[in-house]
């Protein structure tokens, strides 16, 4: 009897701690988002969005000097991101970050306590490349955080962002947390915004694992852009 009771209560506790308690909305779609981008897209934000936390951990494994891990590591991520995106969208236009960074930072609400912070263009101003071309859709990458054992709620739930992370121990996963917005450049409105999280189990960690992480992230973004279309 007691055994049965304890099993029940453990089950209940697990339910509380995991799936059943997670009720965040991590995406937001504009009511007029009816068609996911296909064939062509522009991207901006990729020069400065990438951040690698735990530099020394990554420096040791990726065999990059600790002083240059931020520069070299993030450049690698940026290039992988771009080439992966180019595979998916044949007609890819890369806008330099400066095009969008001139606008003030704003927050976009995804859920009661979840807000993305990022630069989005002013109402009435279209983003243009250096030749003056106006892409209809722009993927704005706000932040791309790479680290170990990270949880997105600790970064984006304003009730939790002041929590200190626990003591550094042997990590189980390499995590990527990234926020982005699909911007309608013609009508200047956010069509789709999301915060995503990827957890990559660690065995041995090499540069190709990092490449793979970025590739998975791009896949995840594309999948979400399709799933987010308002019916």
């Amino acid at each position, binding site marked *: 009897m007691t055994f049965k009771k304890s099993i029940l209560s453990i089950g209940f506790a697990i339910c509380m701690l995991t799936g059943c308690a997670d009720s965040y909305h991590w995406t937001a779609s*504009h*009511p*007029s988002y009816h068609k996911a981008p296909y064939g062509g897209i522009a991207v901006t934000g990729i020069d400065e969005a990438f951040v690698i936390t735990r530099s020394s951990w990554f420096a040791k494994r990726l065999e990059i000097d600790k002083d240059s891990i931020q520069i070299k590591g993030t450049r690698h991520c940026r290039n992988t991101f771009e080439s992966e995106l180019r595979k998916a969208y044949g007609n890819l236009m890369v806008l330099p970050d400066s095009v969008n960074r001139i606008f*003030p930072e*704003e927050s976009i609400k995804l859920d009661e306590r979840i807000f993305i912070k990022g630069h989005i263009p*002013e*109402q*009435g*101003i279209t983003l243009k490349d250096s030749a003056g071309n106006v892409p209809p859709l722009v993927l704005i990458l706000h932040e791309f955080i790479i680290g170990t054992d990270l949880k997105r709620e600790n970064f984006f739930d304003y009730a939790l962002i002041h929590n200190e992370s626990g003591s550094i121990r042997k990590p189980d996963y390499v995590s990527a947390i990234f926020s982005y917005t699909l911007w309608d450049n*013609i*009508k*200047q*409105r956010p069509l789709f915004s999301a915060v995503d999280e990827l957890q990559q189990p660690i065995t041995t960690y090499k540069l190709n694992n990092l490449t793979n992480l970025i590739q998975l992230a791009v896949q995840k973004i594309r999948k979400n852009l399709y799933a987010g279309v308002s019916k």
Partner: protein
Amino acid sequence: MKKLLAILLFLAAWVQASDVYFDSRFTLWKDATILIWAPQGNSPINATDFCHSLRRYNTGIGEPKCRELGEWERDSIAQRYGTWLSNNLEKDLPSSFLRARHPGMAAKIQTLEDNIVLYVNPQGKFVQVAIFDETAQEPKAAGIVKMSNDKMALGDEIASTFFDKRTKRRLTKEERLKQQTEPDDLYKEVPNLKFWAGIGIGYSQAHFPLTPDNWTSSHTKSQVRNYRITKDSVSLWNFIEDDDAFLSLYAGITWHGFIGIEFLYRYSNRDMKTDKSDTVYKELDHWNFGQHDIGLNVLLSMTYPITTWFDITPLAFIGFQYTFYNESIELKNGISKPSRAYQYRVKFEDIYKGALLGVGGQFVFKKHYGVDLRAGISSRGRDIYEAPSPDAGKAPTTIGKSTIDCFISLGFEYLWTL
């Protein structure tokens, strides 16, 4: 078929001169000042004519003033927002998606005071219309009306579609200032302690409403023969009347408007249910019991102010009570010696203990005068904390071991706070 429907819908839209996308009831002032904002600079309506249209379609509007909002038409931030709004004004898009994000634009809208901005933007065969006031950074109302080169007719159309509503008197500067500093009528601090004392009447019965009769009928229909015999003695309602009015006196205290305690006393007079066909009762003048209940309730409550002079406090209570029965029996005049059965008549326990459970509400007028409505259930039984004895099996059954009834009551009370 689908095509035909689409054509019909298109035609319907064509014939319909205007379409309101949303209208969140902006305040239309009497003698309103309407600022006409045509972001492209070529207003399709004329300010003076529009004022005439307003007066034609809204008799309550008084003396409106209309002018073109040149300062926004020349401003680049407003111009950009105007263009953006024109691109984004779509049917079925909630107004929150049309919010002006630029801080400069938001500031412009906020400083409108009680002027109304009428955005008019010709777009082919239609004119986009949006209305702004200082209370929101998004349009308060928006839609389209059919374009017409006759400025007067277009003004009439806009006035009849968006401005055909009741007007409010505009406050003077002093009144606005006063209103801003005026205290909230319904603001009230929750008192630390709230006391009340009251007197009430009520009614109780054994049968619960909406339950089958046969749950209680074995008790309520039972009668007492030969001064002591019933079918069953588990409930007191086998002996005495269960449905009777009672009088109550009560006093209570609530701590921080949330949890409270209440003392109550109830009195009712219960007739014995003697079997009239039993001849042994011929000697009897009357036989009844005074029922005294003394109880203590714990209450949970919450007060909701409805108007400045009226509050409602819903409450739930749970408590316990002790019940005493005071027998009143008399023989008829001239009968000196009662029968043997009279002398061995039924005796109740000295004291019954039970529980109270229920909900109610206090309706308080002018902070002090309350009307109290309650409904609940109560029980009476033998003290359950009695030590068990080895002779329990042989002991005679306790009369009224489990007696349950339900009650409603209405009380009038006086309340005061500390």
